[in-house]
């Protein structure tokens, strides 16, 4: 552990190199020389960058090496019965989806039929066959100095290539569902998604990461977004992992003038769930709203890392992240707004609110602003508090038991973010999981029925 504290990077476990050598000939697109080269370069880059330690400023709050720097096995085919996956199929009857289990496409549960002309929705393995050069360019095109991004380029096994041409509005949601079964050694998967929306195109994307069972698994996901002028993306992310599973998710986005990107991430479970966002705003009139809530407990860690670059003026960004931390959980948030020179009339806000519910829990928060323009409106703030004693008493004084009263108040705190999920089925699943986590016997159906009747 001393070594981890003293160096910024650790050498990767030798098992990574052995696995890469063995697996490279079988990875999607291995027959294509350009792709194979990009993968090999990705692995070299990973080996050179090493595994970050907490001495690395970007990984200050969580110890990723503990989870990620160990021998892991690549995915092998698994047969799951439908009922294990069924609760996670979101978006209603008209949704299209790609389902992956341990990094492999499950064609029996995936369907992308009936798409308008020019729309591309392909699994990564398929894209490696149909457009190897473009995929190689995309993989090589993102070098963010982050070792896990390089590792993903080397191993990319699942994920999707999604393109909407100008003007196409998909009225039914598209779900990307990543299921991990756990085990020992842990299974690793490396989803890479490339999503491009043409001028004025519009999509509702449901990204779901699910861990089944108690076993260990590592998801190392990279999502590259490019929104053209006036494009709209509603992006709901649910990360529901098992207690021994980890997810490292990197999102890299470019937003052109007038684009609107709304993302809501709900983290309910996972030994370590790290969500990194690097978003560049490249024109005026952009709206970028990032929200998230995490509820780590019992040794779980959730880590959110955000960089918003206002490279052009006249745009709006808003970060709104919350956490509820109890029973030895740990939440970290590090968010930065960078307003570049000349990006006047920028509005950029950032807020991180945390409920810290036990003495053995931990919250780290680091909101930052870097402003190189003089005519902007920016603010940031962070809070950390307990449940309101007056509110607890009020509920109990009406006959509601202490445990239920507590659950009601925590739910109220988290619901402010969950309510931002655009898709009702995603919202319902997040609600159900949250209430199950909180205990107190709250019944989501009761809430829905009362609200429904009152309406």
């Amino acid at each position, binding site marked *: 552990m001393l070594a981890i504290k003293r160096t910024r990077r650790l050498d990767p476990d030798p098992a990574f190199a052995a696995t890469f050598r063995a697996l490279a000939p079988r990875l999607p697109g291995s027959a294509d020389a350009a792709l194979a080269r990009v993968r090999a370069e990705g692995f070299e880059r990973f080996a050179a960058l090493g595994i970050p330690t907490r001495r690395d400023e970007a990984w200050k709050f969580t110890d990723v090496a503990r989870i990620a720097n160990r021998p892991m096995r690549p995915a092998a085919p698994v047969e799951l019965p439908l009922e294990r996956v069924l609760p996670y199929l979101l978006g209603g009857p008209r949704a299209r989806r790609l389902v992956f289990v341990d990094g492999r496409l499950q064609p029996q549960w995936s369907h992308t039929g009936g798409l308008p002309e020019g729309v591309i929705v392909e699994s990564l393995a398929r894209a490696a066959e149909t457009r190897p050069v473009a995929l190689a360019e995309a993989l090589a095109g993102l070098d963010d100095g982050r070792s896990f991004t390089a590792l993903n380029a080397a191993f990319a096994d699942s994920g999707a290539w999604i393109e909407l041409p100008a003007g196409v509005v998909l009225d039914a949601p598209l779900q990307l569902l990543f299921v991990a079964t756990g085990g020992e050694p842990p299974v690793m998967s490396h989803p890479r998604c490339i999503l491009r929306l043409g001028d004025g195109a519009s999509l509702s994307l449901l990204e779901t990461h699910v861990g089944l069972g108690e076993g260990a698994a590592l998801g190392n996901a990279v999502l590259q977004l490019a929104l053209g002028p006036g494009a709209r993306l509603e992006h709901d992310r649910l990360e529901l992992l098992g207690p021994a599973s980890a997810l490292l998710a990197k999102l890299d986005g470019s937003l052109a003038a007038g684009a609107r990107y709304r993302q809501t991430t709900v983290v309910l479970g996972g030994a370590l769930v790290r969500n990194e966002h690097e978003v560049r705003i490249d024109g005026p009139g952009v709206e970028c709203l990032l929200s998230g809530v995490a509820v780590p407990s019992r040794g779980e860690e959730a880590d959110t890392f955000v960089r918003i670059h206002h490279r052009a003026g006249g745009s709006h960004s808003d970060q709104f992240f919350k956490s509820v931390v109890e029973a030895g959980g740990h939440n970290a948030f590090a968010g930065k707004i960078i307003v570049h020179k000349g990006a006047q009339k920028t509005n950029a806000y950032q807020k991180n609110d945390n409920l810290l519910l036990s003495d053995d829990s931990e919250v780290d928060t680091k909101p930052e602003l870097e402003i190189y323009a003089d005519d902007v409106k920016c603010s940031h703030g962070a809070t950390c508090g307990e449940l309101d004693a007056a509110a607890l008493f009020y509920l*109990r004084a009406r006959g509601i038991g202490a445990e239920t009263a507590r659950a009601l108040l925590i739910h109220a705190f988290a619901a402010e973010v969950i309510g931002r999920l655009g898709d009702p089925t995603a919202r319902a699943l997040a609600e159900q999981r949250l209430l199950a986590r909180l205990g107190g016997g709250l019944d989501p159906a009761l809430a829905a029925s009362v609200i429904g009747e009152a309406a």
Partner: protein
Amino acid sequence: MLTIENLEVSVEGKPILKGLSLTVEAGRVHAIMGPNGSGKSTLAHVLAGREGYEVTGGSVRFGEEDLLAMEPEERAQAGLFLAMQYPVEIPGVANMYFLRQAINAIRKARGQDEIPAAEFMRKVREQAKLLGIGEELLKRDLNAGFSGGEKKRNEILQMAMLEPRLCILDETDSGLDIDALRTVADGVNRLRSPERAFLVITHYQRLLDYIVPDVVHVMADGRIRRSGGPELARELEERGYEGLLGTRLAA
């Protein structure tokens, strides 16, 4: 129904109630009047079970039970209701959902089935209408952004829905204009019954013009100093606390 004997309560080591005794019978309305700092609100909070009050002596029996040994929710389940002076705003908890949770928690504690959805809706609409609470307010989050008057009406709505046997009103008249006061008082009067008792805590005589009490107590310095009929409230209005009690009051 409620028997308080020599109750002594301190807050952060400072004695507030100094040997208060009071008996409230079913079917009766007792008013407690007193100047600021006399301990009226402390009494209300201690009876409801709020934290931060140290009982250093005396006893409180609610029916056959030792009230002070009960958790706040157990007191509510046993039929005690405190209409609060400052109802708490709880954003994120829907008013209707909260009400139904409360009713069902109380019914469950009494071994009864949950209230059927249709019955709940019928009843809440009926009571809300009587109290001049619009549908829109019912759909909002609990007290969130409510005006002072709306909060007090919402307290009385909860009281009507939960059907307690002892209702404690803590300065329910504060911050109400005359129309709201009348609506709230009418709401309380509708709930008067031979099985139900009221403890109406107020600073001013005004509320007692609308909720006419059976017994009036005057409280000062942590004790009941005078008790009498409704005429005591009027005497108090004329002479003031100091004139009535014949002492200078510290507060």
